[in-house]
């Protein structure tokens, strides 16, 4: 993952979701994620929002193999806010081509 993409994500995280977490995730590292199987089951999904216990997860497809994952406390942010962060960040990230890591 390119460094500048990671820094953009970190910047958005600090600015808009100080109590949440934004990160880019490659699909090959999905196995431990709560949503790993769901993307396989609904392969044409562009964005997924799920709520489990105290947490809200919003996962957006950036490229076929790179996803933006936002995890936030359910009581701290509503979904409209998370979707707006995701939309702005996704647009920002897509301005520059993304490629997966080689490892």
């Amino acid at each position: 993952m390119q460094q500048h993409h990671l820094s953009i994500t970190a910047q958005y995280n600090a600015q808009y979701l100080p109590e949440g977490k934004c990160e880019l995730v490659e699909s090959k590292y999905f196995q431990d994620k709560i949503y790993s199987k769901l993307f396989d089951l609904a392969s044409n999904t562009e964005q997924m929002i799920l709520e489990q216990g105290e947490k809200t997860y919003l996962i957006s497809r950036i490229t076929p193999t790179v996803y933006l994952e936002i995890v936030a406390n359910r009581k701290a942010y509503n979904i409209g806010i998370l979707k707006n962060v995701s939309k702005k960040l996704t647009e920002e990230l897509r301005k520059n081509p993304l490629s997966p890591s080689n490892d």
Partner: protein
Amino acid sequence: MASEALKILGTYAIEERQQNLSIDDSENISSVQISNICDEISSKNIDNLTLEFDADSFIYFNNFGNKIRFLEGKKTDYARLKQLVNSDLDGTIFRNSNQKSTESKTDSDSNVVTEMATPNSSSDIENESIHIHNTLFQSLTHFKKAYSEADLFFQPFEAPGGDFFWIKDYQYKSLAVVGDCTGHGMQGAMIAMSAMTLLKQFFKLPPTNIKESIYEYHEQFKSLMEEEQSGQFDVELGVILLDKRTNEISYMGSGINMILKNADAVTAYTTRKAKLISKKQESYSMKVEAGDQLFILSDGITDQFDADDNKKLGTKGIIKMIEDMPDPVTKIDFIESLNRFRGSTKQMDDQTMLMLTI
């Protein structure tokens, strides 16, 4: 407001692993995929899941513990459809795409507003507005504290709509309200929000005299709209005050009627705004028994024209409709009867009926 074009509607019984589809017309997902996703939701204890596709559609799943209810609709209708699923309404309501029925419960997650939450399009603004408006509504569980059964038929002409409902449960008494504000759509909803806010403040304590309270409420509502001279922005109420110790009810309204169905008869208790203005509207008091049903309904129901677009349902019509329905009257029976009556004739106003069983 975009129309609801539902592609999928159904439930998945978790224990039986059995899927029940009321509508299945999706290009995005197969019924097998839905079953597998429901299994995954159940095994991971996911409370709810939204899948968004590249077009304008989404599928929303809500996990009720023993079953998962899901639907696919347009993203522009997201807030409203999500609340429909959450409120556990029966799927048969949505078969007719002209019917926009909604019931809602408060969502504490919706109270956070920051700069980033600013909607980007008119449909986002509509969805956010509907969401804010609907957060004032309660789920039916609140009504079941004082009544053995409670159900709601809530069908705005244009969402979010000017009709509303509210209950306040006190130690010995319970106050149930249906309101109908001038207009419909966003205009009606804005007035409804003011009316509901005042209502919640006004009835913090149980009223001692429901008739005087309703007169006073309307005076205060008039003061609230202080720059409004024409009387155009107004609210009609129907209020039941139940004494839980004695099973006595008092009914007072300012244009909304109540119908009582007991073992003997179906009786309408009518109220009129004109009578309220001329200080001639009286309240009704009566004793009720377990199993009696109370219906408070907005005039959008009695003003509904029949299948020939010729005659309104009217108060006599709704009494006859209730008399003809199996006992006890259920929401589904009522919807079927109303649909039969109106055929393909369009709904012209917000329609709300609160159904309470003692």
